């Protein structure tokens, strides 16, 4: 059976069925939230999450508690899936990546207050350009990378709230308005070898805005607020979630893993949509496997499971529908680990671990140029990502995407130039 036949032969669930699969994890989080905390604490936790400054590196598990964090994350996914359904979009790899990136970052900076100005900005952009909102939904979902900008202007600059909240919202709307043409153009800088392209775009935009604010005497204080108390629960939950996805994929793929090795042949360079090329069954299997790879990467290196780590793992999980697989991602993780063994940073610190997780934004380099190239990319990525946050003052949540864009823009032309053959 060839690939085309296999994709056509898998169990078809339809658009709604695929959406339902995607809400399994957020639904579990939503229900767990009410078991783990009282309604009063959940509301108070959500309030604390909303009013906290969200520049990197923040952990909502510490700020709002585990119940409120689960609630925040699940609500954000529910609303986005409602929008996807309302626009009658067929689920594809990019949407899956966007959904789980939002779900993950809802543990470290995105909340039910600070993401919506970008959607309003996007809505104004489509009205201005006379195009449909569904055409830019993926970009807008990813653009919530700049959500901390809204929160920090609203609650972190020390203005009176009646001035600062509208000001934060206006900045967010502005970012949502301009992010579409910017992000589309920025793909050319790295030729699709940096999967978190919006991270690169938002990094440049965030650097400009932060520099502008600094020039007027306003500063965002970078922070490191991390939880330690939910480590075991989160490990167990993640392993269960990813095992469920492997099982669902296995069933959809007609009780088989057949074809999975074919999926590993793709470089993962943008645009590699596994749902279209290999079908939903193998995509869900790959997502589950990559989720486990990321989880055990943290466990093996004795890391602590907290909000940023969860964010990294769910982002890998989502992007495993859109380019990442073990063969192209593990070399990057190895590169980051080797770098951390050789340089000044602790191998099991959260910032180094999330560099390893999010560093898989460079997976297409390993997929295209080989394992050694991937290791080199990971090695360089750690050095850059530990320094680049200063530029945007932590307002760009996809800091690794910013670093990844620069690494890819430097490495790819060199590797192409010195490769043999045409």
């Amino acid at each position, binding site marked *: 059976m*060839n*690939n*085309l036949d296999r*994709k056509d032969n898998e169990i078809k669930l339809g658009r709604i069925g695929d959406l339902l699969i995607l809400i399994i994890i957020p639904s579990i989080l939503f229900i767990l939230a009410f078991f783990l905390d009282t309604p009063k604490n959940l509301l108070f936790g959500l309030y604390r999450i909303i009013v906290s400054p969200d520049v990197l590196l923040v952990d909502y598990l510490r700020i709002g508690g585990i119940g409120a964090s689960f609630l925040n994350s699940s609500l954000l996914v529910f609303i986005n899936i409602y929008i996807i359904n309302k626009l009658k*979009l*067929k689920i*594809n790899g*990019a*949407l899956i990546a966007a959904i789980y990136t939002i779900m993950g970052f809802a543990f470290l900076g995105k909340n039910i207050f600070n993401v919506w100005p970008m959607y309003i900005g996007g809505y104004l952009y489509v009205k201005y*350009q006379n*195009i*449909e909102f*569904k*055409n*830019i*939904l*993926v*970009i807008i979902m990813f653009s919530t990378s700049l959500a901390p900008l809204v929160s920090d202007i609203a609650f972190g600059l020390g203005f009176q709230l009646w001035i600062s909240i509208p000001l934060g919202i206006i900045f967010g709307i502005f970012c949502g308005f301009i992010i*579409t043409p910017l*992000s*589309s*153009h920025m*793909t*050319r800088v790295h*030729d*699709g070898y940096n999967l978190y392209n919006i991270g690169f775009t938002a990094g440049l935009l965030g650097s400009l805005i932060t520099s502008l604010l600094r020039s007027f005497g306003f500063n965002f204080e970078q922070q490191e607020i991390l939880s330690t108390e939910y480590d075991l629960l989160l490990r167990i939950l993640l392993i269960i979630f990813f095992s469920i996805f492997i099982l669902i994929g296995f069933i959809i793929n007609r009780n088989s893993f057949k074809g999975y090795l074919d999926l590993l042949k793709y*470089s993962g*360079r*943008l*645009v*590699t*949509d596994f749902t*279209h*090329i290999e079908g939903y069954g193998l995509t869900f299997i790959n997502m589950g496997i990559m989720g486990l790879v990321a989880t055990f990467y943290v466990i093996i290196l004795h890391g602590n499971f907290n909000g940023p780590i969860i964010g990294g793992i769910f982002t890998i999980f989502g992007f495993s529908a859109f380019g990442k697989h073990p063969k192209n991602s593990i070399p990057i993780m190895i590169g980051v680990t080797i770098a951390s063994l050789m340089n000044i940073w602790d191998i099991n610190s959260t910032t180094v671990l999330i560099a390893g997780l999010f560093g898989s934004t460079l997976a297409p380099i390993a997929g295209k140029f080989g394992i050694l190239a991937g290791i080199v990319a990971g090695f360089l990525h750690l050095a850059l990502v530990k320094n680049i946050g200063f530029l945007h003052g932590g307002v760009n949540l996809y800091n690794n995407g910013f670093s990844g864009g620069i690494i890819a823009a430097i490495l790819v032309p060199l590797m*192409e130039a010195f490769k043999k053959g*045409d």
Partner: protein
Amino acid sequence: MKHEIAKISKIVDELIDFYFLNSAKKVNISIEENKDSFIIEIESDDVSCSEDKIMNFKKLINVQRQKEIEEYYWQLAGTSIEGEEYNLVGMMIDESIIDYDYPKLKIKLIRKK
């Protein structure tokens, strides 16, 4: 739609890559604009390509039109030295006919406005 001509050029770029990466020496291209669509036809009489490669190419091209992907990533088409964005091309068109009878390869793509 904005950048329509640029997008057509990107699609053609990517297809030219496929032909010349598969031994073509001469390629004829026709692009026609109708009231509601663009029709791109490309053919060559000297393409040497394995059955697997053609099947893979068809698999990547024969996907549903994805305007949300197109809006974000269209500028990537035609940028790779090795022409790897066939899946993206598939997401930017509505219909495709790929006819390979060694050594002749004819591709017809329709992109609705």
